């Protein structure tokens, strides 16, 4: 056991290099995604979207479109006024009287071919009355701001969880209060207040939100969706249309990336309405990349103000955080991101006096939804920038400052949760990340001279991160582990493996538990709601932890049955029955064994008598002990488990261009227990690079009329092969989670969190430039370098 790693117990498959099981179909192109599915009689859909960010729809004329040969259905807000949502039902399927963002769906067509559908869309005439545009989240919270949702007070939402403020643009206001803020600031020797700002960004799954629906006879609905949430789609669809859940079949084939953007429900109701209007023919909608950018939701923008009070020796005594989330036009998911961000608003630090206000605010921007990290990448830009800025004010090393204030066992979080020895170790992650790239060692004089000579300044920094799953208190998973005739088993779950490796991890868990060869452990690779066991949805890094526990329980249930039938077959007491390598035997008589295949469907005696029957293990898991947060103080149990981590980077800034290269980067996550090192490494590297995208290039830009300017891969740049860090190190700390499978906790989202702040801190260390917003594009850095130079010249003059 090293300083960082858990006891190395003897495992067969946990932590072992098991290859993912979706390889052959994915590398051969035979993996079927929603867009690859073709049904008899299938129609193709195209969308008409609003060119205005805010306008009243005066009239829509669809006559010419309907008259076009080959057009089978045209629908508008008249048909799609029903509101659908998971947390805050504020968005109708199609805009009705008002459009609130540019790109909002105004009408849709289903036709025999995509070309006909596209032509029909061009024939729809919409008369708009453009309205004033609310383009800035700060203006949206001013007392006299125009109201984008005057009927906010009537919207259905999770009562007692979210707190909308009708009569304003605030869809949710989460408050956290702890200690006495005023007294806290009185104890402070130093108070520092800063504002941080981040625009919206995009998820960019390579596969868009492809959706295929057939609204069949007798309201039998069949959906094929590139989604993360089969049962949430079924649930929300049922609620919206009043159709029994059993009538709704949701199929999730392979999914080409999600990153949160495919959580909840999206185009399924719209395509269903088109199918219904087309007499029940199946309709497929494959959104274009432009629609994916401007019509499907994004990550929310954020303005955060942080005021921190510190004693001279570097102890944080008080902190006030106000977060304004730019939810855009709708806040169905945004309200929960606001809530989650509040619970994490001060980072993994022990601060006795706290006041947090997180407001999810409507504007006329593209609407936001869940995005990998669920509010934390944005919060941690602000928090971890603030920590470095404070350390600088104190004249203290930023790592020393962090270590002094981090949460340790015995401390409580800002919502009052006790940190224990098993919670995880942000301090160890930080130390390890720093160690990996030698981030604490100052540059030598020779190195500094070389930097000056080449015009390339280097800088290093490190920062921490945390996140817990943000989900309803009751979110649950279930699993079936069924034995096949040959004694192999197949696992069924409704978690979606859209690349993160869930199915492989679940197979490892089952093979470990059942003590059988992993080659004999299969898992169903697609989800179909009438057949697959319930799962809330595939989000929040909750698959390994919660779905993993359900698989463990299902294995235990199967083991119980194996022992029962084994006892009969072996003529022994059940407690004497052991099993290993897909065989049962009596403990004291291990040389006589019966293969699982002989008991899988029932044990048959020589005379033909049979006992037992097909073996099916069932398991379930539900988030334990979570509570709603108090409306006024935010106190309660918000986190099932906290995953901590840290990054360290070294960057090089070219003064002539402002271009930043990441020379080396280290990311360390306290994963509790590493289930599969290769898969975890893949999550970390992929997440870190996505974080670098948010750092350097990814930003949604709107013009002054709220129209999106970044609608394709030319204007919205995600990292390419050439944007990788020159060196990338990954490592883990293992502080086993008591209620996680074999000690594991989720780690899928975390590598993306705090990347922006770490790089911005390194930029400050390299150049003295303090950025309070993003991205750190060459142009923006160069501009600031020019200003800096000009100021220095003025001082000299």
């Amino acid at each position, binding site marked *: 056991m090293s300083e960082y790693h858990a006891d190395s117990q003897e495992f067969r498959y946990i932590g072992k290099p098991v290859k993912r099981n979706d390889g*052959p179909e994915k590398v051969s192109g035979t*993996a079927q995604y929603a*867009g690859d599915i073709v049904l008899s009689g299938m129609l193709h859909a195209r969308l008409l979207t609003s060119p205005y960010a805010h306008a009243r729809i005066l009239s829509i004329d669809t006559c010419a479109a309907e008259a076009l040969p080959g057009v089978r259905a045209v629908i508008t807000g008249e048909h799609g006024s029903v509101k659908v949502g998971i947390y805050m039902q504020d968005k109708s399927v199609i805009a009705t009287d008002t459009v609130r963002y540019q790109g909002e769906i105004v009408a849709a067509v289903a036709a025999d071919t995509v070309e006909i559908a596209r032509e029909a869309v061009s024939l729809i005439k919409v008369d708009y009355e453009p309205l004033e545009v609310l383009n800035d989240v700060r203006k949206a919270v001013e007392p006299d701001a125009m109201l984008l949702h005057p009927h906010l007070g009537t919207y259905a939402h999770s009562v007692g969880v979210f707190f909308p403020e009708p009569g304003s643009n605030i869809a949710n206001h989460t408050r956290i209060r702890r200690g006495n803020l005023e007294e806290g600031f009185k104890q402070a020797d130093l108070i520092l207040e800063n504002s941080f700002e981040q625009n919206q960004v995009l998820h960019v799954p*390579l*596969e868009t939100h492809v959706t295929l629906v057939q609204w069949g006879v007798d309201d039998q609905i069949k959906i094929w969706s590139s989604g993360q949430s089969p049962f949430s789609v079924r649930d929300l669809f049922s609620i919206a249309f009043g159709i029994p859940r059993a009538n709704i079949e949701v199929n999730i084939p392979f999914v080409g990336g999600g990153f949160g953007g495919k959580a909840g429900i999206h185009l399924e109701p719209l395509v269903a309405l088109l199918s219904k209007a087309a007499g029940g023919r199946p309709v497929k909608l494959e959104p274009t990349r432009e629609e994916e950018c401007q019509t499907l939701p994004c990550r929310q923008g954020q303005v955060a103000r942080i005021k921190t009070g510190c004693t001279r020796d570097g102890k944080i005594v008080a902190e006030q955080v106000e977060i304004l989330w730019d939810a855009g036009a709708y806040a169905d998911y945004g309200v929960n991101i606001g809530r989650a961000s509040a619970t994490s608003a001060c980072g993994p630090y022990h601060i006795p006096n706290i006041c947090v206000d997180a407001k999810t605010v409507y504007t006329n921007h593209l609407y936001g939804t869940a995005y990998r990290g669920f509010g934390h990448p944005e919060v941690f830009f602000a928090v971890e920038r603030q920590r470095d800025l404070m350390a600088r004010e104190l004249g203290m090393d930023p790592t020393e400052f962090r270590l002094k204030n981090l949460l340790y066992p015995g401390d409580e979080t800002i919502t009052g949760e006790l940190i224990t020895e098993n919670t995880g170790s942000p301090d160890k992650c930080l130390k390890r990340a720093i160690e990996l790239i030698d981030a604490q060692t100052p540059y030598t004089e020779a190195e500094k001279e070389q930097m000056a000579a080449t015009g390339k300044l280097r800088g290093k920094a490190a920062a921490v991160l945390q996140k817990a799953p943000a989900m309803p208190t009751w979110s649950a998973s279930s699993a079936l582990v069924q034995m096949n005739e040959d004694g192999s088993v197949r696992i069924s779950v409704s978690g979606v493996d859209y*690349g993160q490796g869930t199915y492989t991890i679940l197979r490892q868990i089952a093979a470990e538990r059942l003590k059988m060869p992993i080659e004999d452990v299969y898992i169903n690779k697609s989800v179909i709601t009438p057949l697959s066991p319930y799962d809330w949805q595939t989000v929040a890094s909750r698959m390994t932890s919660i779905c993993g526990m359900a698989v463990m329980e299902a294995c235990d249930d199967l083991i119980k049955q194996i022992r029962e039938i084994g006892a009969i077959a072996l003529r022994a007491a059940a407690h004497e029955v052991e099993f290993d390598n897909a065989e049962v035997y009596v403990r004291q008589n291990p040389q006589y064994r019966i293969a699982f295949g002989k008991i899988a469907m029932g044990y048959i005696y020589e005379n033909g008598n049979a006992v037992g029957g097909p073996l099916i293990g069932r398991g379930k898991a539900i988030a334990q002990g979570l509570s709603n947060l108090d409306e006024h103080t935010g106190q309660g149990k918000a986190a099932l488990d906290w995953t901590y981590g840290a990054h360290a980077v070294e960057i090089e800034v070219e003064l002539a261009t402002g271009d930043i290269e990441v020379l080396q980067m280290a990311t360390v996550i306290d994963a509790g227990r590493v289930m599969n090192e290769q898969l975890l490494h893949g999550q970390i590297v*992929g997440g870190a690079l996505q974080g670098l995208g948010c750092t350097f290039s990814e930003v949604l830009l709107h013009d002054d009329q709220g129209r999106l300017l970044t609608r394709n891969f030319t204007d919205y740049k995600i990292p*390419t092969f*050439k944007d990788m860090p020159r060196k990338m190190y990954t490592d883990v700390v293992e502080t086993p989670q008591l209620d996680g499978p074999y000690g594991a906790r989720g780690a899928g989202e975390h590598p993306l969190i705090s990347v922006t702040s770490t790089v911005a801190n390194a930029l400050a260390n390299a150049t003295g430039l303090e950025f309070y917003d993003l991205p750190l594009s060459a142009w923006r850095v160069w501009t600031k370098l020019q200003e800096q130079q000009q100021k220095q010249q003025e001082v000299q003059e």
Partner: protein
Amino acid sequence: MTTKSLHLTVNGEVYDAFVSENATLLTFLRDVLGLTGTKEGCGAGECGACTVILNGLPVNSCMVLALECEGAEVRTIESEYQNGELSNLQQAFIEYNAFQCGFCTPGMIMSARALLEANPHPSRDDIREAMEGNLCRCTGYDSIIAAIESVGVSAS
């Protein structure tokens, strides 16, 4: 839309078809031939998910009109799996965990195949240069580079 005749070879098989003038090679492959391994990520030549090999060179099949391929030889991801065996690249992608969601993978493998045919032993920088037009949102690319590099090395 008027259609015209098209004669070409795809994965070694000869096809004669009538295709509309505005059909892209991508839609021809997917919708007419049913070769759905090739994916559309952007439809604008920016992501590389639809990469196929046209007369020996990698192209974005969303940017090529089907009728431009008269007499051409086209190879798609479906050509990699031969005689019941995954190709060396396909095996390497599995070995190095060089995919997650898998949607960009067919295009990645075809770009890599074209690179390896032009340069059997590419350096990491050669790989970065040649593969820059293929976007992956999941992996962070390092595993893809390792997979391609391993095939280059083992070819020596």
